């Protein structure tokens, strides 16, 4: 257990020492500033009723969250994609794997380090965005905690997939697979929405199948659904407001997908030659 903690701390410190976390925070702050400025200078004419104003602010908030989610996902994949495959290739892992540390402890320790890193980043960014939105416009977000939890799960899922393929392939191949799968999920999500919008069940099913292959984007769409106002959802006001909302079952599936991916990664890593 102590080894897991040592490795988790080491991984977390690595992101801070390599300035990854600080740069991400810097970019995040720039992003919040941009968002704040836009909200500050946003004016609503006399024809905009308070109800419509609230819907516009909600949509703006979801757009902000969407960009933020992308930032967190990119950071998660880019920082973690090299951790297993890179250390195997360079031989760095040999000095650790010959210590009294079980292979699964080694992997879990690193995994927890990354989870800790993006959890802090995600919380800071989401809370920052929500606080800024409330402070400037008085808008308070819907079901922020639910949205945050789903976005967090999406990052965990993508991290786990990067770990899984990192135990099998080189860094570059792993990066292509992890981002490629997320790209597939992203496209699948839109296909599903278009299918729902045009009442084309076959198209919607293709989208769902893509989400089964990689359920990351489905988690964002569920998060967006949770955080949007019911009226926006009903009107289809925002491009991020899910027309076809991923079900609770899909969220459960994503959770199982993450757990199974982690279990396979642990098994493969325990068996592979270093």
């Amino acid at each position, binding site marked *: 257990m102590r080894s897991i903690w040592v490795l988790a701390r080491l991984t977390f410190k690595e992101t801070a020492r390599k300035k990854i976390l600080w740069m991400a925070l810097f970019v995040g702050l720039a992003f919040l500033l941009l968002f704040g400025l836009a909200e500050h200078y946003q004016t609503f004419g006399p024809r905009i009723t308070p109800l419509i104003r609230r819907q516009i602010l909600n949509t703006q908030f979801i757009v902000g969250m969407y960009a933020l989610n992308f930032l967190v996902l990119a950071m998660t994949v880019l920082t973690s994609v090299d951790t297993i495959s890179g250390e195997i290739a360079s*031989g760095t892992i040999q000095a650790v794997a010959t210590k009294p540390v079980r292979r699964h402890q080694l992997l879990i320790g690193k995994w927890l380090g990354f989870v800790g890193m993006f959890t802090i980043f995600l919380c800071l960014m989401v809370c920052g965005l929500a606080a800024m939105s409330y402070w400037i416009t008085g808008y308070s977000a819907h079901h922020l905690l639910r949205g945050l939890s789903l976005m967090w799960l999406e990052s965990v899922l993508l991290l786990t997939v990067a770990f899984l393929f990192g135990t099998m392939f080189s860094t570059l191949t792993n990066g292509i697979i992890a981002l490629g799968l997320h790209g597939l999920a992203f496209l699948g999500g839109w296909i599903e929405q278009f299918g729902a919008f045009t009442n084309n069940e076959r198209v919607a099913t293709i989208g769902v199948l893509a989400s089964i292959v990689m359920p990351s984007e489905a988690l964002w769409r569920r998060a967006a659904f949770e955080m949007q106002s019911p009226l926006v959802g009903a009107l289809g006001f925002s491009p991020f407001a899910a027309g076809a909302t991923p079900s609770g079952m899909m969220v459960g599936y994503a959770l199982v997908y993450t757990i199974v991916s982690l279990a396979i990664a642990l098994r493969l890593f325990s068996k592979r030659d270093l």
Partner: protein
Amino acid sequence: MQTADLAIRTRGLRKTFLNNVAVEGLTLEVPRGEVFGFLGPNGAGKSTSIKMMLGLVAPTSGEAEVLGRPAGEVETRRKIGFLPEHFQFYGWLSGWELLDVHGRLHGMSRQKLRQRIPMLLELVGLTAHRDKRVREFSKGMLQRIGLAQALLNEPELIFLDEPTSGLDPIGRRLVRDIIKAQRERGATVFLNSHLLSEVEITCDRVAFIKRGRVLETRAIQTWIDGETTVSLRARKLDAQILAGLAQWGAVIHSDAERLSLTVGTSDVIPDLLRYLVRSGVDVFEVTPHRLSLEERFLQVVGEDGGL
């Protein structure tokens, strides 16, 4: 030899990668407390063999026991130190932090580490660089810090894979002294090195391997006392005298004034000289020449190195 007396015991250890045989069938016994040299040409399977003994690589077949337990067991690793061939670690850590991380992975207490780390940094000559980032280390400094991490837990068994690689003569001497100190402490050292002169000075016993098989195992001490080639420059050597010399060893070359013969032990040289003088031979020069490890290596492994 009893299993309890052995630090390493392998039986028919074999590793194949797809169709490539890295280690053919390694059978080896290394007694505890010995400095053991593991010699072989490039691609002989030395590093793969070490990795199998450490549990980094799973053997395709065969078995390996380390400190009386199956290779790779977590509890056994507490008693093992390992310096990989090209030691690498996170460049963003300082020398001190690197040792601290490794010590913590060994489960060592903070107090113990506060004692051990300065001592080891001093031992490997890096005290002045304790706060320097590892990425700023030279190759030699990396080897030194790698050596320090291998000694952190006061291991019973230390695997050193090319420990002098990248080291200057002072560094090489340091490694020799460290190995000597480990032997005096009672630890077993398993040394994989290409520098045969170093091995000759440091090791108790050596094994020559080729394509993952042990071709020969020899104790260095018996070697020193053992087979010697004696070169002679003398006059009045006739066929009868040459025939008489055969009782000590085979004459491998002779002409009017010079001859060389190989004797089983250097202890016979005085008798040989007495015989020559008694027989009326004028002896001008006698030079005993022991086969160097390098020469023996080339004899056993072959000039092609098995490539």
